[in-house]
């Protein structure tokens, strides 16, 4: 892959963006943050009809975490 693309990916692929991509593909997405001591917290994402400001605030909050785990669950169908 070209260097420019990888550098762009580092700038653009935030946990929220990656979570959104999984969501678009039909996964149920959960975002977990993990502190430096390993403590896990489930992050509640704003709903799709929330304001842009609250989405931006959520994104910024995720970016402050040490580690983010994007859990994409393939929905179970009866």
């Amino acid at each position, binding site marked *: 892959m070209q260097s420019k693309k990888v550098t762009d990916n580092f700038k653009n692929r935030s946990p929220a963006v990656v979570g959104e991509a999984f969501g678009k593909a039909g996964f149920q997405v959960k975002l977990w943050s993990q502190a430096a001591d390993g403590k896990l917290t489930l992050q509640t994402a704003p709903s799709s009809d929330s304001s842009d400001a609250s989405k931006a605030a959520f994104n910024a909050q995720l970016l402050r975490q040490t580690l*983010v785990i994007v859990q994409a669950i393939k929905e179970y169908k009866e």
Partner: protein
Amino acid sequence: MSRSNRSSNQQSGGDATKSTLVEQGIEWITNPRHASIVASVAIVGAGLTYFAYHKWLEEQLANPDRRTFFGRRAIQFMQKSNTVHMRHSIENLKGVLQLPLDESMSIAEVRLLRSSPGMCLRVFRLDYQIGFGIGDGLQMLSKEFPSNKLIGLDLSHAMVEEAQATLVPKFDGRLQVAQADVCRGLGLAPDSCGLIYNMNCVYFWEDLDAAVQVLRAPLLQGGSCITVMKPACVVSAQCDAKPPPHQHHRANTQHLILAV
């Protein structure tokens, strides 16, 4: 004049010419009138060296090969930067998957609780890790889920060969490794595995949407794809590698990736 004397004279003449040329070169470089040319050449040279260094390093981070200098640097970086976080995230996997935190339980033996109403029973047969690199993650996954079979996939042929020789024999038939590109299909049967794990790989996937679709196919219904990310990578890239002082150390290590 004897032949030996003549050749000795020729050699000393040659040395004198060389030393004169070197002296002239030094004189030209140190001449204040040429300072701007010398500075420009030095800056361009340093820039090209920096660019080439990071380009090679980046290629090796995506596709490492321990036999090369940059491959060894990339592997050292992965060990230093990822291993601790990987261990934490894998130790937390049972919490993320909402599995009972009982050491004797394996994924194959438990029911996966779902957030939607009701519960479903899924038997996980296989887990796999994408971009296993040096294999730390596979060993940690194996320890956390001792009853599951593992598949390690990596873009790098060299890492697959290395794992084939060194890792696979340690797993008593529980581990398979193969070369695969997540953007071009994984070659796994549909609905064949319960857990997919990857850490800091998303930046190297050319097409994120395509990769996500590829990951969906082999997952069992109710199975999870776990993508572990270090947001500092994104923050540092956005901030043009100028972190606040308290993040200095972490940002420096990220810069190694970001600048590439």
